[in-house]
């Protein structure tokens, strides 16, 4: 009896010992400082892309050793929450929404002196503090269009106003061409809705989200409801195929590249796929901004999306050093423009001359908007105090799917207000 109990205790002690062995503390001593880095993969951001980007920094700082973690899907923010809950919060993360983490003290707040290299050092601030490096600007969306399918429908130029967009969609549909390519989920469906909301909501009130937080506006208000009605209308007229909601992000991109639809509202990162010799489509692709009712220029964009550092990282200094070096390394910035079509928001940076034609066209559209002072936030892609409350973004994506599948607009808008109240 005693022998059995003793054996049991010894086994438990051995298991505990083995568990303890698996966590290596490198905070002390002179060896390399190990940090964990949470990444995510897309057709543009391949494992090779991340490995090369990490290596550029570790070559510069051999005292830092990086253990790469990969989010199992596109929703890296939820994965980061799961890691936090299980005591495995990464030391460094990229493109994770800081909302919630920052308020709970899980993230390191960058000082102004650390952000001097960035063009918009206050972007994405939460209660005045910046937790995510404001590394790059993304226009969300640009409408990419298949010039060959446009020609087949007798369209010689892209639409300049929303009525012209509807007219183009009608002509495309009449020729048996699906006007818009969409998918399910935030990144595959969100940009289309963000385009409408930019012209119908943010163009009138760039502080709409701050006002929603303050309770001054609601999703049931006329402007938002009108935008929601436009999305619903596109689906009911057959310009958006509700069956496409079963596509994931990669499948949606591939569908456009395969010529399965004429227009694809997507973030400017899609330019990388158009410029890459591996994924470049056989047809010519043009770009235009989501048109407003009267044709006035409105371009939704988001600056942020960079690296975040855990406030409790064992090797905090190494994590900070890695994050800043990763974000400011010229090689990494060049690679982010060519591989992911990003516009680095770093002072003095100019994209390499080798960037592709699609990247250059998107960059030009963005600069026209900056010159015309026509840049507004990208609805559903904002961060920090500019963004929705935690948990509401996912409901917003579901609401977009509801509009496409035919739920009444008023019911969808009301449910968003209910979800907002629950999250408050």
């Amino acid at each position, binding site marked *: *009896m*005693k*022998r*059995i*109990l003793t054996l*049991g205790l010894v086994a438990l002690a051995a298991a505990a010992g083995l568990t303890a062995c698996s966590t290596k503390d490198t905070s002390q001593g002179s060896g390399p400082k190990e940090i964990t880095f949470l990444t995510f993969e897309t057709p543009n951001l391949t494992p090779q892309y991340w490995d090369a980007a990490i290596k550029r920094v570790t070559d510069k700082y051999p005292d830092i050793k990086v253990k790469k973690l990969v989010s199992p899907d596109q929703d890296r923010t*939820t994965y980061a*929450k*799961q890691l*936090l*809950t299980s005591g495995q919060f990464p030391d460094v993360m990229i493109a994770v929404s800081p909302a*919630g*983490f920052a*308020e*709970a003290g899980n993230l390191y707040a960058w000082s102004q002196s650390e952000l001097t290299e960035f063009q918009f050092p206050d972007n994405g601030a939460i209660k005045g503090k910046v937790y995510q490096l404001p590394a790059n600007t993304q226009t969300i969306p640009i409408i990419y269009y298949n010039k060959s399918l446009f020609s087949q429908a007798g369209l010689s130029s892209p639409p300049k106003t929303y009525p012209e967009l509807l007219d183009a969609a009608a002509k495309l549909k009449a020729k048996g061409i699906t006007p818009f390519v969409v998918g*399910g*989920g935030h990144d595959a469906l969100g940009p289309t809705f963000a385009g409408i909301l930019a012209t119908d909501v943010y163009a009138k009130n760039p502080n709409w989200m701050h006002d929603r937080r303050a309770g001054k506006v609601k999703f049931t208000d006329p402007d938002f409801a009108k935008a929601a009605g436009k999305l619903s209308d596109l689906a009911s007229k057959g310009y958006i*195929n*509700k*069956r*496409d*909601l*079963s*596509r994931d992000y990669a*499948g949606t991109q591939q*569908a456009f590249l395969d010529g*399965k639809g004429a227009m694809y509202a997507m973030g400017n990162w899609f330019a990388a796929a158009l410029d890459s010799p591996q994924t470049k489509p056989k047809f010519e692709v043009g770009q235009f901004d989501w048109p407003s009712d009267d044709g006035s220029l409105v371009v939704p964009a988001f600056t942020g999306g960079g690296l975040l550092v855990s406030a409790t990282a064992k090797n905090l200094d190494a994590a900070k050093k890695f994050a800043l070096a990763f974000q400011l390394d010229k090689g990494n910035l060049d690679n982010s423009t060519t591989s992911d079509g990003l516009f680095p928001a770093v002072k003095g940076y100019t994209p390499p001359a080798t960037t592709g034609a699609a990247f250059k066209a998107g960059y030009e559209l963005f600069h026209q908007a900056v010159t015309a002072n026509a840049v507004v936030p990208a609805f559903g892609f904002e961060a920090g105090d500019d963004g929705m409350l*935690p*948990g*509401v973004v*996912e*409901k917003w994506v*579901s*609401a977009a*799917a*509801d509009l*496409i*599948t035919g*739920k009444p607009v008023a019911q969808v808008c009301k*449910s968003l207000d*209910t979800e907002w109240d*629950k*999250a408050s």
Partner: protein
Amino acid sequence: MTADLAAAPTATKPPPPRRHPARRRRWPRVRHFAGFAGPGVLVYACFVLAPILVSVWYSLTNYNPFNPPTKFTGLHNYRLLFTDTEFLTSLRVTTVLTMMVVIVPNVFGLGIALLLDRRGWLYNALRSVFFIPVVLSSVVVSVIWTRLLDDDGLVNRTLRSLGVANPPGWLSDPKYALYSVGAILSWQLLGLCVVVYLAGLQGVPAELYEAAAIDGAGPVRRFRAITWPLLAPALTINTVVLLISGFKVFDHIQVITHGGPGTGTTATIAYNVLQTGFVANRRGYASAMAVLMLVIIGTVSAIVLKVLQRREVDL
């Protein structure tokens, strides 16, 4: 251990005068069984009971790790559940899905088991074929079926080649999505039912069939009078296992539909728990959902088990 057992009854010291004699005699036996049961009970207590108790505690608070401090809120979360349309919809979705998962594999599983209850290499091979989906990971099954039922997937391409111009959006149309997921789950669990029913069928004495045949009973009569009553234990096992599997479905939803398309279509309670707890960060409220789900599963399973076991006795 043997020494311990032997030593206790032959102790030289006389026992105290008739104070708890039964307890003294029982003590070595208790220690003996505790040695076997202890590690299992310890693991169960640490990894099952303790998390349940912690969840019950969280469900009585407004716990949100990103929005401290945590306050005790009593039954507020439970009261909220009964007015939360999102939760009530997920309860309806879970109930529909569970009914499908209990009925479809049971019916088809019994039919297939009756067809496979024969000797020969072909039947042995077919038994393995039907059981393969059971051992496959839910994620693998979900990915395979997502590819098949996608709008451009094999199923719709086949339908289009057969002249169906607008095949259904199996996973994207709210009218079909839940039933598609139910069909996938049923397909995966079918093999389990087949194996359990086959085991039951092989326990039915052949003499009963011979006697019934001599009495002139046909195949339907033999099934109703012999096979069906004697398969009662197999039906009980299948029903309870499927019931529990149906109620706690999460992984298929996560991979195939992400709770969509839109809202209130395929989001089950388990999926809702994760979304509320880890996306909206409302862990206290999510815990209340989880506790209620545990109570529902426990209650329904107990009732079904009781009814089916009573049927076994009656038969």
